[in-house]
């Protein structure tokens, strides 16, 4: 442990403490990781129990759509990362464009996801439906997990997109600037976590079979 002490913030106002903000965000990201972690735990256990059913289930998912979404998310991660560079270099317009592009990617991802879900619904794979009940043991669980995990992820995409939009507004208003960019950085961190989760979801559902 450090033997020298923390620099204390000046007593009066609550000045921005860059490190604290970052640390707080990371701690928050841990909670997101563990939130999904619970589902990953279920996934691992059920996969262990029903290898065949998971195999069969995985084959019904469209690798192309999944892959496309992977590309979309990775690219959006790039654009967020770039937007931070842009902001710090003072290239405001470029920063906003990059963020706009990211949000467009989020939208694209959701459209793609909706198409995919609708196709599943079309095949009668609606949670709680007779058809789901009739599936062989384990496959129902597979689709249950599929909906739970991609659904929760989808919610995070929407939240992430909204947060980025809000930060765009703050940049426009000059509340987030080249000197004071930690809000954008934290929003970016959040967006990367969304990407990170997908990086695991993609092989687990679409590829391993």
């Amino acid at each position, binding site marked *: 442990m450090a033997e020298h002490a923390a620099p204390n913030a000046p007593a009066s106002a609550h000045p921005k403490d*860059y490190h604290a903000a970052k*640390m707080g965000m*990371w701690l928050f990201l841990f909670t997101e990781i563990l939130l999904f972690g619970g589902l990953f*735990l279920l996934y691992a256990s059920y996969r*262990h129990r029903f290898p065949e059913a998971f195999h069969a289930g995985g084959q019904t998912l469209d690798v192309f759509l999944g892959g496309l979404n992977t590309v979309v998310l990775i690219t959006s*991660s790039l654009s967020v*990362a770039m937007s931070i560079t842009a902001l710090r270099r003072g290239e405001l317009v470029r920063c906003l464009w990059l963020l706009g592009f990211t949000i467009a990617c989020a939208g694209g991802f959701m459209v793609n996801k909706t198409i995919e879900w609708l196709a599943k619904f079309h095949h009668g794979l609606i949670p709680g439906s007779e058809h789901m009940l009739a599936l062989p043991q384990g496959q129902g669980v597979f689709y249950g997990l599929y909906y739970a995990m991609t659904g929760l992820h989808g919610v995070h995409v929407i939240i992430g997109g909204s947060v980025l939009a809000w930060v765009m507004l703050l940049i426009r208003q000059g509340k987030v600037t080249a000197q004071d960019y930690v809000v954008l950085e934290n929003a970016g961190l959040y967006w990367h976590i969304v990407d990170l989760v997908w990086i*695991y979801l993609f*092989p687990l559902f679409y590829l391993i079979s």
Partner: protein
Amino acid sequence: MTDMTDTKNAHEAQHGPLSYRFLALVWAGLMALTALTIAAARVDLGFLNVAAALGIASAKASLVIFFFMHLKYENRLIKGMVLTAFVILAIAIGLTFVDVGYRY
């Protein structure tokens, strides 16, 4: 632990913004790995399929965490915290398998 490096030098002297070029390179790496994992899934490697998919996913995750998320440039404290979080998750899943693995 160096969690308390002086605020000023911690965030100013640390590093400038990452260059676009560098970020694009990371992106290219991620895309390549994505292609690789899809390709690997097409060949039947038996048990290795799972290992390969998870291995590649973890490589991708590391790229995102270390570069996009700047973890490489954070102080050791944050790095330690991130490690703790992942270790706890791994332990939780691992210990669950003490039951699940021996039950079915």
